[in-house]
């Protein structure tokens, strides 16, 4: 079943799409399918995952070769015997063990001591800056992923170009370029349990006409994106999806989001950018070491990433997964066996194009003299250098200064996350 490609161009918040009677829409798909053709199957894909709450980079990518690490964290350091060694100095938290095979296959890299040039220790400010892509500037109206979409129109031929998984569209995708928020892929669309498909389609069309003619502003553009996406999803057999290669996603929101991202990528509906949140990193109290609060969160996180890579199989060749978090946590544990808001953290990149098997970035060390304000890991890589590298070298973005206003990208500062 081939779906027609429709021009999906939007400027100034108005989508220039006509919503006439589309025969494709009223005719139910004759054959359910797992794939739609019409989009180049090898389109590069970027999956961004936000660890909201500020992940403790030091217990995720552990500097187990540093005695200071153990001295500063008598109750919560991960014992060297439990760490999965990566390079003699750094190692993975034991609960990230499922990711080790991707490290060994050189498809996984970590960037340490990365973060914002802005010193804020407010979750909300720091998340806002990281998603807006403009540290220190609050007035930025849109997110950097959306600005990338605004400047690269080449891929704007599908409503699935940029998809966020969750009930709300995140700040990183806010802006004038179209993007979708999907909370539950299978339930996306009008549901009318007692109605026949024909009646449901009719209801869908009625709402489509209501919004096409009467809605203004954000209500108008969002509804147009919605109805176009509903049309395309109707051609896919979503209920029958089985992950490939025995991939086992963890239960819960995050595992489900990763499964649905894999499903959409494999369906060739033209996904270029996907986004999901993973929460629970604000470990002020009893964060634990090899076991405990943080270990549980890392376990789910690592299992979902590994399942995703497994499930994509060959497709991982075109995909880069980037994890981010608003800041790191204090080097020293606090009075409640937890950690408070810090500065630099660690981020992961996973995928075929990744220059894997190394910890990237300049490591400033844990010595108090090297710390930010005497307490936190110093930022030696501006997060925009990593984001810009991925946009340029993986997605082929050309106008990086438009994506990160006020920032001059310099390939000399790129951490080297993408293979040349």
């Amino acid at each position: 079943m081939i779906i027609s490609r429709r021009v999906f161009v939007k400027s100034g918040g108005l989508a220039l799409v006509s919503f006439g009677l589309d025969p494709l829409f009223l005719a139910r798909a004759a054959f359910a399918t797992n794939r739609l053709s019409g989009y180049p199957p090898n389109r590069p894909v970027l999956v961004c995952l936000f660890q909201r709450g500020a992940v403790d980079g030091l217990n995720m990518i552990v500097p187990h070769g540093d005695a200071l690490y153990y001295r500063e964290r008598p109750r919560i350091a991960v014992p060297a015997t439990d760490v999965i060694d990566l390079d003699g100095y750094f190692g993975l938290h034991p609960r990230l063990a499922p990711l080790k095979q991707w490290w060994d296959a050189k498809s996984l890299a970590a960037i340490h001591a990365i973060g914002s040039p802005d010193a804020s220790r407010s979750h909300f400010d720091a998340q806002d800056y990281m998603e807006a892509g403009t540290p220190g500037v609050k007035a930025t109206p849109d997110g950097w992923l959306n600005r990338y979409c605004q400047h690269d129109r080449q891929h704007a031929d599908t409503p699935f170009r940029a998809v966020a998984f969750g009930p709300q569209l995140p700040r990183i995708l806010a802006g004038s370029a179209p993007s979708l928020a999907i909370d539950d892929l299978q339930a996306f669309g009008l549901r009318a349990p007692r109605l026949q498909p024909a009646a449901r389609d009719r209801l869908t069309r009625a709402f489509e006409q209501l919004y096409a003619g009467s809605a203004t502003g954000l209500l108008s553009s969002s509804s147009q994106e919605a109805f176009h996406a509903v049309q395309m999803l109707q051609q896919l057999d979503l209920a029958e999806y089985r992950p490939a290669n025995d991939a086992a996603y963890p239960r819960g929101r995050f595992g489900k989001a990763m499964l649905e991202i894999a499903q959409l990528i494999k369906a060739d509906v033209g996904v270029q950018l996907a986004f999901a949140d993973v929460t629970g990193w604000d470990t002020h109290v009893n964060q634990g070491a090899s076991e405990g609060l943080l270990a549980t969160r890392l376990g789910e996180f690592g299992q979902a990433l590994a399942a995703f890579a497994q499930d994509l199989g060959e497709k991982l060749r075109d995909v880069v997964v980037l994890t981010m978090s608003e800041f790191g946590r204090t080097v020293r544990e606090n009075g409640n066996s937890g950690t408070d808001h810090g500065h630099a953290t660690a981020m992961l990149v996973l995928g075929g194009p990744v220059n894997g098997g190394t910890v990237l970035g300049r490591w400033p060390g844990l010595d108090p003299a090297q710390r930010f304000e005497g307490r936190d890991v110093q930022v030696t890589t501006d997060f925009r250098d990593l984001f810009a590298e991925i946009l340029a070298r993986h997605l082929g973005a050309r106008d990086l200064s438009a994506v990160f206003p006020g920032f001059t990208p310099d390939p000399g500062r790129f951490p080297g996350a993408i293979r040349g």
Partner: protein
Amino acid sequence: MKTLVVPPLVTALLLAASVGAGQQPPVLTPRDSAFHALNRLAYGPRPGEVERVAQEGVMRWIDRQLAPDQIADGDRAAREREFRVLHYDRGDLAQLYLDAQRERRERKADTTADQTPGPVEQQGRRLAGQLAELAVVRATISERQLYEVMVDFWTNHFNVFLGKGADRFLLPDYVEHVIRPHALGRFEDLLIATAESPAMLFYLDNWESVALGLNENYARELLELHTLGVDGGYTQQDVINVARIFTGWSIKRPRQGGDFEFHESVHDEGEKQVLGVGFQASHGMDEGIRLLKLLANQPATMHHVSQQLCERFVSDDPPDGCVDDAVAAWRRSHGDLRQVLRAIFTSPDFWAPGTLGGKVKTPLEFVVSAARAVGADPDTNPRLAQLVARLGEPLYLHVAPDGYPEKQDAWVNSGALLDRMNAAVALAAGNVPGLVVHLDSIVSPTADADRLVAALDERILGGTLSPNTRKVLREQLADVGDPLQARALAVGLAIGGPEFQRQ
């Protein structure tokens, strides 16, 4: 053409506002003003309510809403009594929580046993469901609408996450005895009540913060979110000193749902400075009270909270004028929230033509206004709360301390819009199980499209129905012969359509 009979006070303000610009005063009919006020100070009109408020006079209605104690509210009070969650205090709920945990542990340990949750666990889940539904029911049926709107505002401003440990049993008490008593009182009293509440002390970890093991979590959010705002001019050192001042503010036997308790022995006794103000050594708990009063009366706090109130009541991006009016009233009245709100409701910005219909409803506002529009009579069954959750706003379950966002960008997206349409169709068709709706209060069953459309415009949409919506509704109704079906379809489309998403 509707006649121009604007309430006298509003007219005066509009004239005053427009004299300088040399413009004509905007035309607001009494019905327009009533619809606007009902959309902002209330959770939307019930059928017929626009007429009633217009007849009473919108300013008189607003003044009544500002004095909720004088408004008879028997239906709400009667319905509340059906909510068993209100019959338990913190201690009872803590005990229930412990019992449920034990029951669960025993069930998991015995692999041969039936793995369906036991009676105590089920009771716990029912009560949790009731808690969220209670908020929705109050918002739907209470006559004290502005009061309920403010309860929601403060619940988000002083957000506590129900899913965090002891907050599962501390939160109901927090809503009843901290937020609700102060929702239209003085800001300072509300601030102190939240600071001393076991729910907040637990949520932001302050109960464990001691002189030799400082936890900055509450201190930071107190400055950033509750009072000064992120640009309020404080430093990291201020955050640390605020945390030192609150060392020892703790909970008596937290696992048993205990009260606030000050622990002198772990309080940091040293001298401190916050915002350049000195706090002498060894003043124990008084330091914290003094600090909260200082913070409550800072200009940055007045501005930050007034800005948020104007975002809620006026516009996602409110003009400086109404914020300044609110700040001035705050200063005059020492933070009497009724005076602050009154200043906003009498500000020309509140009645400006661009303000009307200028905001998009949050999921809670959408569901409650829809329930009110269809004359729903919700009970303790958590159906409406589940709808609110499905649209992205599960009540009391916002993890981060900033509470649910107010602005449209957070709520308007393709997936959420489809879900609103689904909710509208289900509500109108009576397909929300356990929820009784009274479409008769809008219009009696008829297949007469003109009559249906006119009734919807008048009784649900406040006269905002667009020509396109009228046309689409007529087309859809053209070949529906059954009067009940026609009415349900028309109501579903009206509530799921674009006009109803706005307020």
